[in-house]
């Protein structure tokens, strides 16, 4: 009995042990399966989840690597394909943006810069690192940033804004005219997320337009002058015949009535003097017509200055002071025309000092491949309002004069590819500056 009791006890004990063993084994098996599931499914899923989060945050640097083959691996591969595709698209977009010569930037809703293209960096002088995250209006300081922001405007209206002409400032505070177009950036639901602006530096176009306008104005003036020249030439010549006849008649009467009334002779004298004055005007008009062509030959400018001085009879209260630089290089010029220029300028200088007298200073010098001549006086000076009109035909402040002297002067100077400018202070005097290019064969050695 005792033995059977022991056997039963042993059997129970034995079965109990088996149960424990089975439980342990089941637990181990469960754990093994769970671990296996965790390794093969959950971990890759976690990796996929992490990767998706990184992609959502804009990080496409990492690809997924899953050793085991299976459904998850296939999913990971698809995920990697998506990353590579996104990388490609982003690279393509970036290449496109960088290939565009016009600067482009994007901003978020707070106007913080989120993208700054290389062309933007080049034009503005800022690097992308310097400006990303900063307010675009603080960077560009455009004249209409506050009132008429192109990005805000397009965001507000929901339509792009094209070709708004504004001024922006570069890093070194240089103001540049730009033509800007902007568009809002929207999400899938159509909510505005920010804006994109593309603009173009139009400095060169502006300069070309300005030059074109100037050339056009110059052409109109030239055409007017040419027409005026033809008219002046025709009228001048036609007037010479009647003037010659009047002069002959006055001469005849003057000599026929030798012992007659003194007043008769006075008036005949007036007629003769006025004929001389009229003829001078005609000469001036014809001189103006003749300035269209210049025959340039290398000449010593100092000799032309000396010649002009020798031909002018100045009033006794006016003197000339010469400061002529020796051994100036030859200048290609039309001797007679440049002589006329000097005579005009010296005569004007004399006229400005008629009342009080004074000194006319004539200076020649060489400066940067040019020969400069300065003719200055101590006369009444020219009001600034008159300075702009000074070279216009028929502008004059003289009592007797038709205002062609300086127009002729400018025309001659232009024919010589030279420059003329004036500086004047009312009550102190006026200085004219002429810059003539040095003859080519000498310009290399003097530059």
């Amino acid at each position: 009995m005792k033995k059977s009791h022991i056997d039963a006890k042993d059997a129970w004990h034995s079965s109990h042990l088996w149960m424990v063993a089975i439980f342990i084994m089941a637990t181990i098996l469960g754990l093994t399966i769970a671990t296996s599931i965790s390794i093969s499914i959950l971990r890759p899923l976690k990796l996929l989840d992490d990767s998706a989060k990184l992609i959502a945050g804009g990080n496409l640097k990492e690809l997924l690597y899953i050793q085991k083959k299976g459904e998850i691996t296939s999913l990971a591969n698809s995920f990697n394909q998506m990353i590579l595709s996104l990388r490609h698209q982003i690279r393509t977009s970036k290449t496109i943006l960088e290939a565009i010569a016009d600067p482009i930037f994007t901003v978020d809703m707070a106007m913080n810069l989120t993208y700054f293209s290389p062309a933007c960096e080049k034009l503005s002088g800022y690097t992308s690192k310097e400006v990303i995250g900063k307010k675009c209006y603080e960077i560009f300081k455009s004249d209409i940033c506050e009132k008429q922001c192109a990005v805000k405007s397009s965001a507000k209206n929901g339509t792009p804004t094209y070709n708004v002409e504004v001024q922006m400032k570069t890093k070194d505070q240089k103001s540049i005219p730009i033509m800007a177009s902007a568009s809002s950036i929207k999400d899938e639901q159509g909510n505005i997320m920010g804006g994109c602006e593309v603009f173009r530096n139009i400095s060169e176009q502006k300069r070309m337009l300005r030059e074109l306008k100037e050339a056009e104005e110059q052409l109109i003036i030239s055409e007017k002058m040419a027409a005026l020249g033809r008219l002046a030439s025709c009228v001048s010549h036609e007037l010479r015949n009647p003037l010659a006849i009047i002069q002959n008649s006055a001469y005849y009467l003057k000599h026929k009535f030798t012992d007659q009334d003194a007043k008769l002779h006075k008036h005949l004298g007036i007629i003769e003097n006025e004929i001389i004055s009229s003829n001078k005007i005609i000469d001036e008009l014809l001189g103006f017509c003749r300035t269209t062509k210049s025959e340039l030959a290398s000449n010593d400018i100092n000799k032309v200055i000396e010649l002009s001085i020798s031909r002018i009879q100045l009033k006794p209260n006016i003197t000339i002071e010469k400061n002529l630089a020796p051994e100036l290089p030859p200048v290609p010029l039309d001797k007679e025309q440049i002589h006329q220029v000097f005579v005009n300028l010296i005569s004007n200088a004399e006229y400005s000092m008629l009342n009080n007298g004074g000194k006319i200073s004539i200076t020649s010098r060489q400066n940067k491949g040019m020969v400069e001549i300065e003719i200055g006086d101590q006369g009444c000076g020219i009001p600034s309002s008159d300075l702009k009109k000074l070279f216009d035909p028929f502008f004059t402040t003289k009592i007797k004069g038709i205002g062609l002297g300086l127009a002729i002067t400018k025309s001659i100077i232009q024919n010589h590819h030279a420059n003329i400018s004036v500086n004047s202070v009312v009550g102190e005097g006026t200085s004219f500056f002429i810059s003539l290019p040095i003859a080519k064969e000498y310009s290399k050695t003097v530059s």
Partner: protein
Amino acid sequence: MMNGKTIKKSGETIEKREKLKILVVDDQSGMRETLSDILQDAGYVVEAAVDGYCAIKKAGKQFFDIILMDVIMPGINGVEAIKEIKKLNSQTKFILMTAYSAETLINEAVKLGIYQYINKPFPPEQIISILENINKNKTKNDE
């Protein structure tokens, strides 16, 4: 330069000057009239022609010592007229008068051997002075 003394006063006779015959050719009647009067009073024998054709016709009929010729005229110009008259008489001296910048014509006339050219308007003293010089030379040659 001549002055008022060269003008013939009424009653006076200037012998040698009357030897010179002058033809004034100008389409402007005022020019013909005034120059003719001045030169006649200065003692010259003066005739006038209204254009180049008329001048050629007159020069064909009689000899002129000097012809004062305008350049631009209706019909043929003064230089063409000079060419024709030179064929008739090579001794005539020509003084060209011009109110225009007719440089090409003037150059052509200079090549033809004109005595002088003057621009209008000119002081009458100038033309009288030129004529006096021609007269002096002619008198010397005659002697």
